[in-house]
Structures are given as structure tokens and as C-alpha cells.
């Protein structure tokens, strides 16, 4: 049975669709190519988001580049071809003058990953300082290494700076890329600190890090002001930060942005 409320909803939905379609960017009807700069650690999730978007917008070709945050900032700064930038909030903050107001899109936090069976019997952050534990971590200049270092230094507040020095002694692998850090797990190393989004339950066991020591990083997405396809770029940003995009990000273990 149709209620007055149902009819009103139907009317509103229909009107909304009409308004939305009339507000559709002019470019959407034409063939458009978008240059999209995406933080490399969000590659898997964004590959799927782009696939979903392309399915609904066959006239828009998206050319993603998976890059480190510093490279994204440099490309935007130098005016290299780019319509959309997605990176850590501190990175986009540096280039805010050249971007439309960025939208928070996801949060990521740190976890400890160990190989199946947990050979070194790690149960908490503190155990990473135990003698004989072999660690694989990001280099200090990489995003994954910088945040792991911050987590370890937070631990020193409770366990003294010896904790940091003992953890450093246990590092056997240091790599720039998060994928290389993970690759050493099992073969060369007993544990790593990495982004929660890197968790693959089929390969690793996850040990949570107490919020007290954890570092939560926020990522943002924004249209580049110099974009020649601003309307299409805005449409893609709205899609990625909307319900479909957020659902995909959740599927890949990202936390929702602070405002959602």
C-alpha cells in the first residue's frame, strides 16, 4: 500500500534525480580524460573505485598514477597535468593553494603483522623489543617507516627509550616500499608495523596496537584548481568520497573519514 509519505519520497527522489541530471557537468556528455594522482598505498581500493566509476561513466577515461605523497605534492606544485589528487592530509595541506578544498576520504591506522603461526610469539607492541625478534620496517624516509617510527617512539613514553633502542636493534630489513616490507615477512622477518589496510588474512596474523600508541592518518581527495576538466573531476571526487567509494574503501580495511 502506498502511503502519502511514500508518494512524497518518490516525488522528492524524482525531483532530486531531475536536479542532479540538470546539474551534470557539460563535459560528462563529451569524452573526457582525467589524470588522477593517487597515493600508492591506496592502489588496490582505488583500482576498484575507478572501475566502478568507469562502468557508470563510459565517456570518462581515468588515467591513474600511483605515487608517493611527496611526488604528488611536487607534481601539483609544478603544474604537471593533474585533475585530481588523493594523498595524506599533511601532503595536500602543503599544496592547498592549488587545490579546491580537500575532502577527507579515509583514515588508516597501524597494526602489527606477523606470519601465520606467529613464530616469535608477539602479542603486543612491547614484544617487538624482545631479544631475537626480527623486524621488517619501512625506511625512515618512507610513509610506512615514518609512521611505524612514530608508533615506536610513543611506546617509549611508557617503557623508556631503551624500548626504542632495542626495537632498532631488532630491525633486519628496511625497505622504501610497503610491499617490499611485507614481502620479507616470514622469510626474513618475524613481524612488521604497517597500515591496517595492508592486512591480508590469508597470509598474515594481525595484532592490534593500543590506541594510546597508534597513529591515525587521514587521507584526502581534491580537485586540482588548474584542471581543464574541473566538472568531470568534481564528479569523480564526489563519487570516490560518496557511498560507493566509502563502501569500497571499507572493504579494503580503511577506516571511515573523521566526519563520516
Amino acid at each position, binding site marked *: 500500500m502506498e502511503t502519502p509519505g511514500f508518494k512524497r519520497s518518490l516525488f522528492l527522489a524524482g525531483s532530486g534525480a531531475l536536479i542532479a541530471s540538470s546539474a551534470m557537468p557539460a563535459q560528462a556528455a563529451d569524452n573526457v580524460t582525467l589524470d588522477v594522482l593517487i597515493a600508492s598505498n591506496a592502489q588496490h581500493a582505488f583500482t576498484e573505485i575507478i572501475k566502478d566509476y568507469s562502468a557508470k561513466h563510459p565517456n570518462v577515461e581515468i588515467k591513474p598514477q600511483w605515487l608517493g605523497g611527496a611526488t604528488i605534492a*611536487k607534481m601539483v*606544485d609544478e603544474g604537471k597535468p593533474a585533475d585530481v589528487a588523493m594523498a595524506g592530509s599533511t601532503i595536500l595541506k602543503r599544496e592547498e593553494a592549488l587545490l579546491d578544498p580537500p575532502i577527507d576520504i579515509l583514515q588508516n591506522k597501524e597494526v602489527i603483522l606477523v606470519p601465520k603461526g606467529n613464530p616469535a610469539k608477539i602479542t603486543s607492541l612491547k614484544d617487538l623489543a624482545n631479544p631475537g625478534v626480527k623486524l621488517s620496517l619501512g625506511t625512515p624516509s618512507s610513509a610506512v617507516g615514518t609512521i611505524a*617510527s*612514530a608508533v615506536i617512539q610513543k611506546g617509549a*613514553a611508557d617503557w623508556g627509550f631503551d624500548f626504542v633502542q632495542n626495537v632498532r636493534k631488532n630491525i633486519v630489513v628496511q625497505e622504501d616500499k610497503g610491499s617490499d616490507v611485507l614481502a620479507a615477512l616470514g622469510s626474513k622477518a618475524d613481524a612488521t608495523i604497517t597500515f591496517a589496510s595492508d592486512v591480508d588474512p590469508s597470509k598474515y596474523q594481525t595484532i592490534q596496537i593500543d590506541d594510546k600508541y597508534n597513529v591515525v592518518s587521514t587521507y584526502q581527495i581534491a580537485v586540482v584548481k588548474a584542471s581543464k576538466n574541473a566538472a568531470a573531476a568534481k564528479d569523480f571526487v564526489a563519487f570516490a568520497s560518496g557511498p560507493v567509494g566509502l563502501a569500497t574503501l571499507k572493504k579494503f580495511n580503511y577506516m571511515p573519514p573523521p566526519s563520516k
Partner: protein
Amino acid sequence: MSATSGTLGAEEYRGFRNPWVQLVAGIVCMAMVANYQYGWTVFVNPIAAKNGWGIAAIQVSFTVFVLVETWLVPFEAALVDRYGPRIMVMIGGLFAGLAWVIDSQATTLPMLYIGGAVAGVGAGIVYGTCIGNALKWFAGRRGLAAGLTSAGFGAGAAITVVPLTMMIASSGYQHTFLFFGILQGVIVIIAAAFLITPPKAKPADTKPPRVLQGTYDHNPGQTLRSPVFWVMYVMFVMVGAGGLMAVAQLGPIAKDYYVDTFPVSLLGITAPALTFALSLNNIMNGITRPVLGFISDRVGRENTMFWAFLVEGIGIFALMKFGTTPVLFVILSGLVFFAWGEIYSIFPSTTRDHFGQKYATTNYGMLYTAKGTASLIVPLASVITKATGSWTAALELAAILNIIAAVMALFVLKPVRIWDNKRTASEAAVPGAVPAS
């Protein structure tokens, strides 16, 4: 070859002719041009936001400023030695003020770069002249005078950076450029009115120098032909480059040692270790100039250089070995920078000691270009770091450069200066020539 001479009565040093009045006027001028170097950073993002220019493109203006400010000093200084400090610093103030007026109106990047170049000319004239004037007015306390004057360059920024930031937030960067450009330019011009060359080219500071002095006033050509100048130039480059390399590697070391974000509490202040170390760098870099300048007036330039450069070299090695704990990281980096910053007081005073009064500004202006040469060597550290995959080799190089410079101070510079004095004493013994004070 020209000689200095003259003995003066105390009455000739009253009023403006008091060396301390001259020193304070010089410090005020230096403080007023400090923002062109240290205050620039707060303008960068607002300029980018307003005009949509990239940060890197905007920073070219700063590079232009530094290049012009450093490399034109010898030519500007030659004019100072010829026409006196007052008119030159007034022109410097005019250029400095005009530079920010240009920046306030800049609607294109080339216009911003012109502003940077004009600022470089203005700040270079003020810097070179005020250091030179301080050296000329003080005999027994040249190190202290040069140190206080060069410290004024940093202190000015410390005082005005907050009002600058607040005005940018409330009234926009263009209004701030315009307001502070005119204000700073006018203050420099007013303070410049106090500046004069010492009467009869003889310092009023009657304290006799305790340190090794040259035999006559070298003109720029004679200075450039002197081995003493080139020994000092090489040492300035080595220590300058070593210090800049150490500053550049501070972040990577802190991150590698996992101390960068760890909070350190010292002297009632708590801050992450890397932030603390970088702030301490600025403070130590300023304090050391008058302090070690003062010490060098008493124990000798070469002796002070030896200990300062040696401490810096050993300090860098100590930082590499013991900087793994946050507190030691902060303290040792502070020590390294304390031992580094004094080059801006000891080298000018040594230049004046050895090459005399008359062309002191030009002679130091020529030596000051070693700062620019040092900055050209610094990228070598990045090449070494990239090639070796670690900052260790670059820091070891910085430490070794300092230790070599320390050894050179005692075992090359000092003997060469004594030898040069003996050599030139016979030249100075021509009729009418009197040894430089």
C-alpha cells in the same frame, strides 16, 4: 698601498661618534633587513593561495635574493669604502623597502623575482656595510662588535615574525609587504643617518687589540694577492659547507635514530627532539657570534677558530655515535651549531685585523662570498648520501672538513699571517707608511 694613521682626542668621539652608538645603529639596520631572509617563509603560502603559483616557482624569488645578497657584497662594499656608510645604508634601506613594495604589487612571477633581486641588493648593502662599520669602530673588541652586529640579523626576525604573521592573517600578505616594506625601509634610513666612518680612520675604541694585527691597509687587489686571504677563504668554505651539511642531515639522523617525534624536556621547554634541535640551532647560531667573537678578542682568532672548529668536528662525530637518545641528540646538535655560527664574527674580525682599516668593508665583502661558494658545495652531500644510501658519509665529511679547518687555523693560517706580516713589514717601511692598527 695606503697607510692608516692618527691619534685622536676623546672629544672627537662624542655624540654620534661614540662607537657604541655606531654599533647600535648598525644592529638596528641589520634587524630591519633580517625579514628578507628569515621572514620570507611566512609569505610563501599566502602568495601561492592568492595567485595560484607553485611553491617551487615562488621560492625562485628567494634563491634570487640569496644569490644577489651574497655575490654583490664585494662591489657594494667597495662603494661603502669610497662613499662612507651613511649614504650607502640609506640606499640599501631604500632598495629593501622598495623590494617589498614591488612584492606587494607583483601579479606575475617575474615581478616577484625582480622584488627578490632588489631585496638582495638592499640587504647586501646593509649587511656588508654594518659589519664593516662595526669592524672599523672597534679595535680591541672587533670580534664582539662583528658578532653583535651579525647576531642582530637573526634577532630582528625573531622580534617581527609574529607581527608579520598576524598582519598576514588579518590584512593579507600584500598589505603586510607594503606596510613592513615601508616601515623597515624608513627605519633603516633613519638609523643610517647615525652611521659615520671613524674620524681619521682610527677606531675610537681605545682598547688596544690583543690579537695578531697586519702591517698596513691592504687594498682589495693586495688582499686578493695575499695567501692569507685564500687560506681564510678555503677555511670559511670548509666550515660553512660543513655546517650547512650538518643542518641538512639533522632530519634524516633524527628519523633514522627514531628520536624525531620523541618529546624532550630541557630548561622548562618540552618539544619533539627534532623540532627542539632545529629551534636550538637558530638560537645557538645567534648566541655564538658575540660570545665567541668576544672570546676571540682575548685569546686570539686562530686559537678560537681551532677550538670552535675542533668542537664542531668532534661534536658531529659525537652526534652520530650518541645522538641515539633524544636528550643527547638535542644537546649535541646544539653544541655543533654553537661551534658553527661564530664564523660570521671571527672571519670578519680576522679580515680587519690582517688587512687593515681602510678597505675593511670591501675585503670582508670579498671573503663573504665564501658563504655562497659553501652553499654550492652542499649539494655534494646529497650526491654522497644517494651514492652510499646513508647520511653517515656526508656527516663524516662535514666533521672532517671542520677538523681540517681547525688544524689549518693553528698550523697554516697563524704561521702564514706571521710570515705575511714579516714580508709586508718591509713594504710598509716606505716613507709615510704606518702599520695598520
